[in-house]
């Protein structure tokens, strides 16, 4: 039987789709009937969504960093060729 405490432990597995369907169904039922569980479930889910959005915000490499990387590697490759 899943209760609030057990729900806390299962949230990541639930949202990562690593739980059996019967356990998922039990969680869904609990969440629909218990306000505290619903708040936990919804806010955890929202946190994951916000994290995902943040992760999708790629940071561009500044042009000078890109150039510096290639110049640096060219020097190292040249050194390698000379040895």
């Amino acid at each position, binding site marked *: 039987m899943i209760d*609030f*405490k057990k729900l*806390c*432990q299962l*949230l*990541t*597995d639930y949202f*990562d789709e690593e739980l059996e369907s019967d356990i998922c169904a039990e969680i869904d039922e609990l969440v629909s009937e218990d*306000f*505290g*569980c*619903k*708040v*936990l479930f*919804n*806010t*955890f*889910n*929202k*946190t*994951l969504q*916000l*994290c*995902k*959005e*943040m*992760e999708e915000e*790629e*940071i*561009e*490499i*500044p042009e000078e*960093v*890109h150039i*510096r*990387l*290639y110049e*640096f*590697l060219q020097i*190292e*490759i040249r050194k*390698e060729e000379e040895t």
Partner: protein
Amino acid sequence: MLVSDEILVKKSQKGDYPSFAELVKRYEKKIYNLAYRIMGNREDASDVLQETFLQVFKKLAGFKGKAKFSTWLYRITVNMCLMRKRKRKKREIVSLDVPILTKKEDEIKRELRDDWSESPLATLENKEVKKTLSEAIDSLPEEYRTVFLLRGLNGMSNEEVAEVLKISLPAVKSRLHRARLFLRDRLSQYFQ
């Protein structure tokens, strides 16, 4: 057709520098992003980017291909970042058992107030929410943050993260879960 990493690695190992350049081109943005998230600033991210690819260049000949090239590359990046951080000792070493992060599941209280997930303010367009989340991620202890970032940022599976960090799968799952609970808790505090 896209040439596979494996082929580019094999060519690079034989001294084909354009193939190595292609690998750099393919991964430089991912490595920069990972380094930036772990280090928290552009300067360190740039240095880690250079050091990582230098290491890759030097060690590529000995790469046997037992792991995927990307796994090996991310492992080098993470190690570079962590070494740099340890050297600086900017962050205090935090035991995994310290409860700053780790409100354990049985310590989480039922919340009977409003469900903030439905608030129109719960969006990254809300700069305060973005800042709160960003600071919460930054405040995660290193062991948790690295798992969280690898899992999210590079879309890796739990198994791949375990391989990159050389930790067990249950450890990855546990750290990821506790990190997520911690972030939820921080956001809940903001919405209180």
